């Protein structure tokens, strides 16, 4: 019977292999997360001292009683719902279009055009979009004017600012969701479709009962990724709106960051915990759902 120590010693080479990875994970993953959770239970003013004052759940109570935080949370949910719906339906539509036999020539060009923004540094992309939407410089309004369409207020009003962020983020992210759909479409069993066609199924029935069920993995992955992605929306806010106009685009990540910047560490980290729990709960629920279906 071997003891744990003997097992470890016997496999020491594997511990050696894993050591650098373990050190980085602990130093820059586990430790900061634990630290963040600890700080969320301390009074902000003492948070960084060697022996901080612990205040229990006071920070959590404070943020849940803060109307600005609740408004920010609601706004984040709204933006996330809209973005997930817009990105996934756009990505799915484009994937179906690019997968069809109609676009055999030049297919690669279209894929590259839609995927290039994914690898474009997000700061650079959003900087360009910020100025495209600008009223005096931007190409957006000059184009609308040329086409005889009404002016788009861009980043200057609440509704259009959120819409502008959504457009810029869709430009940056949708190509990624599209290639997940395309990868799934390309490995589907086409013989099933032929069989269904021979049996007299209509195009709509084939999509509904033969193709879509096979695309479930792509849908689950994309929904999880997109939900996490948009719940955490941050860079686009920093670059394009700074949370404005009038807090209209002040999402949770940015709000937490602002508090951190003001030295309100306890509340900022409490918000981080709330967002963290949301993200974990959503991903686990969806993965469980996916696992149960596929097993």
């Amino acid at each position, binding site marked *: 019977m071997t003891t744990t120590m003997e097992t*470890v010693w016997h496999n020491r*080479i*594997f511990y050696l*292999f*894993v050591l*650098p*990875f*373990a050190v*980085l*994970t*602990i*130093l*820059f*993953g*586990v430790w*900061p*997360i634990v630290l*963040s959770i600890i700080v969320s239970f301390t009074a902000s003013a003492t948070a*960084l001292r060697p022996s901080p004052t612990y205040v229990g759940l006071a920070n959590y109570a404070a943020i849940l009683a803060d109307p600005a935080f609740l408004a920010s949370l609601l706004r984040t949910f709204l933006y996330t719902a809209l973005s997930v719906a817009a990105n996934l339906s756009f990505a799915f539509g484009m994937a179906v*279009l690019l997968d069809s036999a*109609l*676009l055999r020539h030049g297919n*690669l060009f*279209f*894929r590259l*055009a839609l*995927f*290039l*923004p*994914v*690898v*474009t*540094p997000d*700061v650079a992309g959003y*900087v*360009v979009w*910020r*100025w*495209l939407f600008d009223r005096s*410089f931007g190409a957006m309004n000059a*184009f609308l004017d040329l086409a005889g369409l009404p002016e788009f207020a861009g980043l200057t009003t609440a509704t259009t600012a959120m819409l502008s962020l959504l457009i810029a983020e869709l430009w940056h992210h949708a190509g*990624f969701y599209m*290639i*997940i759909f*395309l*990868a799934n479409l390309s490995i589907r069993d086409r013989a099933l479709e032929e069989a269904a066609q021979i049996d007299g199924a209509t195009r709509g029935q084939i999509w509904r009962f033969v193709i879509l069920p096979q695309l479930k993995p792509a849908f689950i*992955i994309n929904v999880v*990724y997109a939900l996490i992605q948009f719940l*955490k929306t941050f860079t686009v806010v*920093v*670059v394009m709106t700074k949370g404005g106009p009038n807090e209209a685009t002040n999402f949770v*990540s940015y709000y*937490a*960051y602002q508090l951190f910047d003001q030295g309100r560490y306890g509340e900022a*980290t409490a918000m*981080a915990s709330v*967002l963290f729990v949301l*993200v*974990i709960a959503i*991903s686990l629920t969806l993965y469980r759902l996916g696992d149960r279906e596929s097993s």
Partner: protein
Amino acid sequence: METDTAPPANRLLQAGAYALAGIVSVAFLYPYWWMLVSAFRSTRAIMDSPLRLLPERFDLSILSGISNIGGVPLLRYIVNSIGITAVSTLLSVAVTALGAYALTRRPKLPGFTVLRYGFLVTIMYPYMLLVIPVYLVMFKLGLLGTYAGIILFLALGPIQFFLFEQFFRKIPGEVIEAAIIDGASEAQVLFRVVLPMAAPITATVALITFLLNWAQWFPILVISKTPDTYTLPVALLAMNTELGSNFQGIMALSVITTLPVAVLFLAAQKRVMDGMASGAVKG
């Protein structure tokens, strides 16, 4: 179906499909064109006609206008970007390959399951909010404002881990057993058998890591004490935040930030797109 013999309804459908894909592609590529053209045009000229498709004249005079941003030479940001991205990519590939290999070969060893969960929790933590406590950790480790701090933080990423893990899982057990029966040590198995097989996936991971780390800005901004350790995206953000900003300079800096990764992506597009798709499917 052959397009020449296709019935008119199909021809029409095909024309519609091309028109739609074409319009979407042009809309997606237009921001690049506008950025590029604007980098050659004066602020005055852009305000007069924002839609011009070609600049009035081609000259690189704007480069002298952004040769120094926030007291730091442009060249330094470029060197920082290349250096930080290249070193963090190499480190990431080495550390993740070894770690993922050990965790896949011996998942049940004491501590390995905990480590795996620790890593999974880390990548689920909202990234921008993780960076904030990382500031405190860097402070405690004395790594604030150092290249080492930035590079170490950028060396950890989910897609790298998932791509390697997925690959190592697919290696047939017999291949490794055969090598061990032939008397190879575990180190020899890794370096002589597994890693040579892993060359293509290693190249994919390196490429994707390079693209992702080139785009990083928030951790670099937080860990830096002065603009001396900024990379191009961080410098671009700083410049974009300034009041009375130099529009033409911002566009030129955007071009400089985007061009290297755009070229790299186009040169290796299949590897990047396939890699990102399969790394996500595992994740």
